[in-house]
């Protein structure tokens, strides 16, 4: 009997330890924690329905790995809630706003209870979103919103914050004085322009930090490398820092810098190629993610809407800040090498919540 009791106690002890280890500590978004206003929750009782639900996901495209990961986050999260979600319809507009308008209309025609919309452009998708919203079908915008406020909730991570944090780290690394170059993403694309606005807000407070040049890179590693190489020839050692709004061009730019022997501070995102090259070439660097896991969050928010549970108008997902060198205001959430994985594909986005079977293989 004593042996059995001892066995049970030991078993329970290890079970408790395992459960504690598996339970992830819940994280909260900084922008939420530092927001000086109370979050106004919106009443969703008018959308309350009995499960199972049919949800439509109108995706702008899966034309790059970020969008592929985000798309998978949506599907994987829907699979986790099979008891509540009967069908998830997914469309791919191939970056064409006109196709996405047709796709979204089709989803409504299929009788979707809710539409998740990642808009190809803010303006073009606005009329269809407005019409659906007025029909009483809830719309949850994901990653990119529409121009008007005619939607139910917007799941995102602030691009302004991203631009600010990156520039703040760079300016503080330079101790408020120096020359930098800016390599933003795609001219005219909402996220790229918003990140530039955020960065320039910070720049205006550092009058001795000069922007030598700013060139768009189309979020392409090869453009990042090509443009950085030309800038190195043009400015040489005058370049003291590089602001990249993404890890895509960042991974190309860092190679051009390394080949030229110019080890200057650089910014980027949680793209594995960028993280591993920073580690390999030992650059002073910073990364703030625009997390792909916002796809999963959009599904969770959608379920709350359909269950009549209040949700905020803007849902900010948590994001990780990494630095190889901390500054006064920008500190690393965890060591760089815990996020950089040389054995994984360069095109993977590290801050994801995808189960093993959903990772692209």
């Amino acid at each position, binding site marked *: 009997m004593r042996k059995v009791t001892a066995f049970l106690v030991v078993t329970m002890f290890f079970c408790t330890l395992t459960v504690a280890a598996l339970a992830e500590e819940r994280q909260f978004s900084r922008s939420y924690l530092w927001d000086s206003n109370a979050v106004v929750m919106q009443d969703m009782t008018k959308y309350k329905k009995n499960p199972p639900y049919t949800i439509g996901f109108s995706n702008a495209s*899966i*034309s*790059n*790995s970020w*969008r*592929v*990961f985000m*798309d998978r986050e949506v599907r994987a999260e829907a699979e986790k809630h099979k008891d509540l979600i009967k069908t998830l319809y997914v469309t791919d507009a191939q970056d064409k706003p006109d196709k996405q308008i047709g796709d979204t209309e089709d989803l409504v025609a299929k009788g979707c209870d809710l539409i998740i919309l990642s808009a190809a452009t803010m303006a073009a998708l606005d009329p269809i979103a407005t019409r659906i919203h007025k029909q009483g079908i809830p719309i949850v915008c994901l990653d990119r919103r529409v121009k008007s406020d005619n939607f139910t909730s917007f799941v995102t991570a602030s691009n302004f914050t991203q631009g600010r944090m990156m520039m703040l780290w760079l300016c503080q690394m330079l101790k408020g004085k120096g020359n930098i170059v800016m390599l933003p993403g795609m*001219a005219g694309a909402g996220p790229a322009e918003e990140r530039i606005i955020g960065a320039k807000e910070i720049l205006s407070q550092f009058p001795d930090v000069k922007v030598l*040049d700013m*060139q*768009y890179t189309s979020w*392409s*590693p*090869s453009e990042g*490398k*090509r*443009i950085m*190489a*030309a*800038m*190195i*020839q*043009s400015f040489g050692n005058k370049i003291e820092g590089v602001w990249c709004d993404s890890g895509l061009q960042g*991974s*190309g730019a860092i*190679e051009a810098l390394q*080949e*030229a022997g110019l080890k200057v501070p650089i910014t980027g995102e949680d793209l594995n*190629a960028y993280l591993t090259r920073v580690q390999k070439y030992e650059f002073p660097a910073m990364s703030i993610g625009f997390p792909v896991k916002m796809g999963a969050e959009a599904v969770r928010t959608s379920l709350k809407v359909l269950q009549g549970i209040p949700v905020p108008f803007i849902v900010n997902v948590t994001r990780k800040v990494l630095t190889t060198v901390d500054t006064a205001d920008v500190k690393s959430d965890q060591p760089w090498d815990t996020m950089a994985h040389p054995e*994984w*594909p*360069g*095109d*993977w986005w590290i801050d994801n919540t995808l189960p093993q079977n959903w990772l*692209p*293989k």
Partner: protein
Amino acid sequence: MEAYTAWTGSRRFAFKSTFEKYGIYIFLIILFIFASFVSPAFLQPQNLKDVLHQAAALGIVAIGQTFVILGGRGGLDLSVASVMATVAVIIAKNTGGQNELLLPVALVCVLFGLLVGLANGLLVTKRKVPPFMATLGMMIIIEGFRFIYTKGAPKGDFPPILRFLGRGDLGPIPVSVLSLAALTAIAVIILRKTLFGRQLYAVGGNIHTAYLSGYNADVILTITYMASGLTAVIAGMYLAGWIGIADNWVGKGYELDSIAAVVMGGTSFEGGQGGVLGTIAGVLIIMMIYNLILLLHLPIQVQYIVKGAVIILAASFYVRRSST
């Protein structure tokens, strides 16, 4: 008086024909001098090396494109960029960064490029599908297969040898540039010294005459598309080696840039006129324009305007030449 007219006339004629023949090279030299004048950074050895590095992949793919366009009948190959990107992801995934696996995987890629070219060639010659439509369709099909293959996020790594080919140097000269020079020399020999070259010019010049001469135009044109597929594979490997990241869009835009380089280089869309050396000059012009715009700190979007203007200028110049 008559003698004077004859003398000036022949001089004018000589000048005109020289200018027509060597116009692209003269323009290249003028652009080079202009670039050196307006931007001191342009002449720095490292900058020239960067330009040549970047020109290598475009030059290689443009060689194949020249063959296709030389064949006439509105020939062009829009599928080259798709082939380049697919080759990059195949190599990254299947070599996993190991040198010893590069050769077998590269051979598979070569086979893939030749098959794409064969399909393009058969569609154009046997099914009489316009080249624009045939190669556009092929481009989209390959893209679709690539996304299925990579599931949108390519994985793997490139072997060190490939990285050396893409960005390494032999002495002061980039390896990729030496490769481009070797491929250019081979292409020039094929076009000028072989029966196939003569037949290609004949088919491009006048397909009916070529047919009457006993040339099998369909076979010749199909070979040009296969050559284009092959050079796209080689260019894809070099570009992947240069960037070092398996990206789904390696070579994006190279289909139009390669066509632009061929047209700038004096190869006529009607076929049968032009050659590879002009194309290489066209490639250098495009890359110099890209580089100069960055060195002058102009917005990068300006490169599209300048490049477009240069293409229109070149095309109108050659149209005028062929109509006079």
